[in-house]
């Protein structure tokens, strides 16, 4: 089983890339895509913790 830390670090890396994109890019559409990327990185973190604690709440939060 892949550890939770693996997923958290991947989420952090993706979030950072997205944040960098929002700041660096000047095109509004591309900036929005980078926001979308950050959103998905956070979703990954939520799901990783949902599995870690065996709770369904994280999945619901990422679904909402």
């Amino acid at each position: 089983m892949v550890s939770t830390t693996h997923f958290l670090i991947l989420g952090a890396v993706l979030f950072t890339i997205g944040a960098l994109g929002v700041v660096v890019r000047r095109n509004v559409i591309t900036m929005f895509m980078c926001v979308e990327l950050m959103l998905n990185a956070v979703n990954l973190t939520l799901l990783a913790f949902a599995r870690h604690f065996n709770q369904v709440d994280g999945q619901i939060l990422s679904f909402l």
Partner: protein
Amino acid sequence: MELLVFYLFAAIAVVAALVVVLQRRALYSALALIVCFFSLAVLFYQLGAYFIAAVQVIVYAGAIMVLFLFVVMLVDPEAEFFRLSRVRNLPVLAVPVAAVLGLLLVWGISGMEMTDSGPGELAELDKGEVAVLARDLFSDYLLPFEVTSILILVAVLGAMVLAKRTD
């Protein structure tokens, strides 16, 4: 084997994310973002969130990205309208700051002590089962669910009002 799948799709996701940021043309950014979403869906599946993985493919990679592609193809994304005036040479400043942010996050996460919380409400078999998800969504999380639907309604109305305005 599982670790191999994780590393493969994590690498694809990170490379696709970098392409999203570095690619000059918005169309290629959108296509790279679709690749990123698909590999993230595989990782969601690996986390046992089967329903969320399906939603990721159908809603994100399907609906939202098609919408993005429509927008990019219908209007000129390089038009002056879409440009925000910004400071020049921003990457010189932004890249080190982002690198520090990323390193801090990774450092914090790897320093975290992961305690096992014992068995939660989910048995190993129930993970990602839609019935469990639905039961909690429509009981404990009913209010947030309804508030989200109202938020989306407000967003739709706001978009219509903004689009209809003629002056």
